[in-house]
């Protein structure tokens, strides 16, 4: 029981909310621990994120490079790729998302249990990128709420890792008392690319064909 305190690595902006330490004081044979529950939960969540790689295009190759031995996502507690959305925490959308794929990413997002976060990897997922045409969703934030945008075409693995670390910092600032933080943020309905959730559900039923799906284009 040599440890007496572990300074936590949350963002310095949050320092005003109180000293966030784990203190361990041995007393006789028994030790006891005090900490804030928020801090403990967030610390656990942020360091064992299970990513759900939604890789569609070039960014997926860079995501694979990030997961491979040189960059090694396991250092961030993310080596457990969860290809099933129901066992995942972070949706990493790597690659362009055409309108035919929009209902699928929406459905995957809805299948993920709370708490969940989303990383939009690359220019195409964030804004449509160079594909400014009839086929491609101009940013997945019109379909699902996004926490971190990683720029680049494709982003380097270092860029993705930086985005993941930003997400970990964001998780550290979450408060359990704040109920609204887990509310599904619907994208802005005033946006030209807004697609109502009902429409997305309708076109993804059950084997939607492309004739249906082009209707979702504005």
């Amino acid at each position, binding site marked *: 029981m040599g440890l007496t305190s572990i300074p936590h690595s949350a963002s310095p902006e949050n320092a005003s909310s109180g000293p966030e330490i784990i203190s361990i004081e041995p007393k006789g044979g028994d030790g006891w621990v005090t900490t804030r529950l928020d801090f403990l939960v967030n610390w656990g969540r942020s360091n064992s994120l299970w990513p759900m790689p939604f890789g569609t295009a070039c960014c997926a190759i860079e995501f694979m490079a990030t997961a491979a031995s040189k960059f090694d996502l396991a250092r961030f507690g993310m080596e457990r790729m969860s290809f099933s959305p129901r066992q995942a925490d972070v949706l990493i959308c790597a690659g362009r998302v055409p309108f035919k794929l929009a209902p699928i990413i929406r459905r995957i997002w809805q299948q993920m249990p709370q708490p969940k976060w989303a990383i939009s990897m690359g220019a195409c997922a964030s804004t449509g990128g160079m594909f400014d045409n009839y086929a491609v969703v101009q940013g997945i934030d019109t379909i699902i709420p996004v926490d971190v945008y990683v720029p680049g*075409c494709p982003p380097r693995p270092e860029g993705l890792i930086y985005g993941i670390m930003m997400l970990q910092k964001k998780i550290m600032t979450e408060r359990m008392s704040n109920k609204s933080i887990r509310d599904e943020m619907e994208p802005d309905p005033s946006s030209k690319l807004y697609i109502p959730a009902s429409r997305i559900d309708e076109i993804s039923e059950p084997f939607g064909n492309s004739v249906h799906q082009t209707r979702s284009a504005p």
Partner: protein
Amino acid sequence: MATKRTIEVELSTSGLTRDGKPQRVPLVTGGDTGVALAEPPSLELDGEHMLINIGPQHPATHGVLRLVLELDGETVVRCIPHVGYLHCGFEKIGEYRQYNQIIPWTDREDYLNSIGNNVAFALGAERLFGIEITERCKVLRVIAMELSRIASHLVWLGTTCIDIGAFTPFLWSFQERENIYNLLEGWVGARLTTSATRVGGMAADIPDKWLEGLRGFVSTFPKTIYEVDRMLTKNAIWVGRTIGLGVMSPDEALNYGLSGPMLRASGVAYDVRKDFPYLDYETYDFDVPVGTNGDVYDRFLVRVEELRQSVRILEQCIKRLPDGPVNVDDPRVILPPKHKATSEMESMIHHFKNVMEGPRPPVGECYVAVESPKGEKGYYFVSDGTSKPARWRIRPPSFVNLSAIPKMVEGHLLSDVIAINASIDIVMGEIDR
């Protein structure tokens, strides 16, 4: 299945000996004495057929392919592939871009082979323009194509190993890919999306001492091939999961229009580099590996051998790389040097015309095919004399190869569908375009 081959298996561990050491036994596949592999169960238990949906979000579909399978028990009766989930309108965008501006799109279409696509596009555009490129440029482009073939086969190897259940080769292949990334980054400044070529030349000459790096890669990479070979080729699990699966006879392969390793594994020695040479490939000394059985295992063997042949070509490139200019001396397509553009009237006009209007090819059409890692990759242009193509069409090899998947998986088990699908080496970016 029909294949009767004996393979000496080294890593066959059917149990432990008395000393607690793994027992090594030879495994005969396919024959009467060996272990029966992938025998379709008898269809006595007729029940209702089940429809099962794989993808579009599934790690083993290598992208966003969707397969709808009709199963009788665990045997595939029918397979319907659905494509189009990654349609991004490449060809339509190309009609609104100048020739040099299309090159960034070719990166993102078959993204495992981006620099090879750049070269293929530039070759097509140059034939349309009627430009003969320089000798140095030819050798540099061969280096680019072979590096990208290695990189693409490495991704195929890694992902296929994951699909079939081996994780280690994935790490090895991505380690080697990092070396290729470093080389490409030193040359053109990007790891994956290179945009390396221009009509009439390259975006940049190789930097000083770059060839040293390539030489280092060429000398160390065969060791990785050897390790992969040693790990997989005689591995009982690997052989058991791949042999006799997805067999395509030479006639069937030709009739389906397959190309690349898929076709060569079936025994047809068609390689665009040999049959319709470009970039002086006829002067390089390399072999075209050909399989005999046309199954998943032969496709693996063909691709591994292609890695070795690519290394051979790279060695010859290092020896013969000539000095001289990279870009053609043609002010219609190549920008003049900066100092000339700011001091000479002629060069300034050329610069202005090139940047503002773009190079203009004559009216006509042309088709250029190259041997991409997946097969015959073609670009077809129709020019109406303006600086933008009237039509730009891609002939994606993996789209044609994918069309054979219903034929290949029928009668096999559900788990074999994954191995067969992986053996095609599909890239959805070029299938859906």
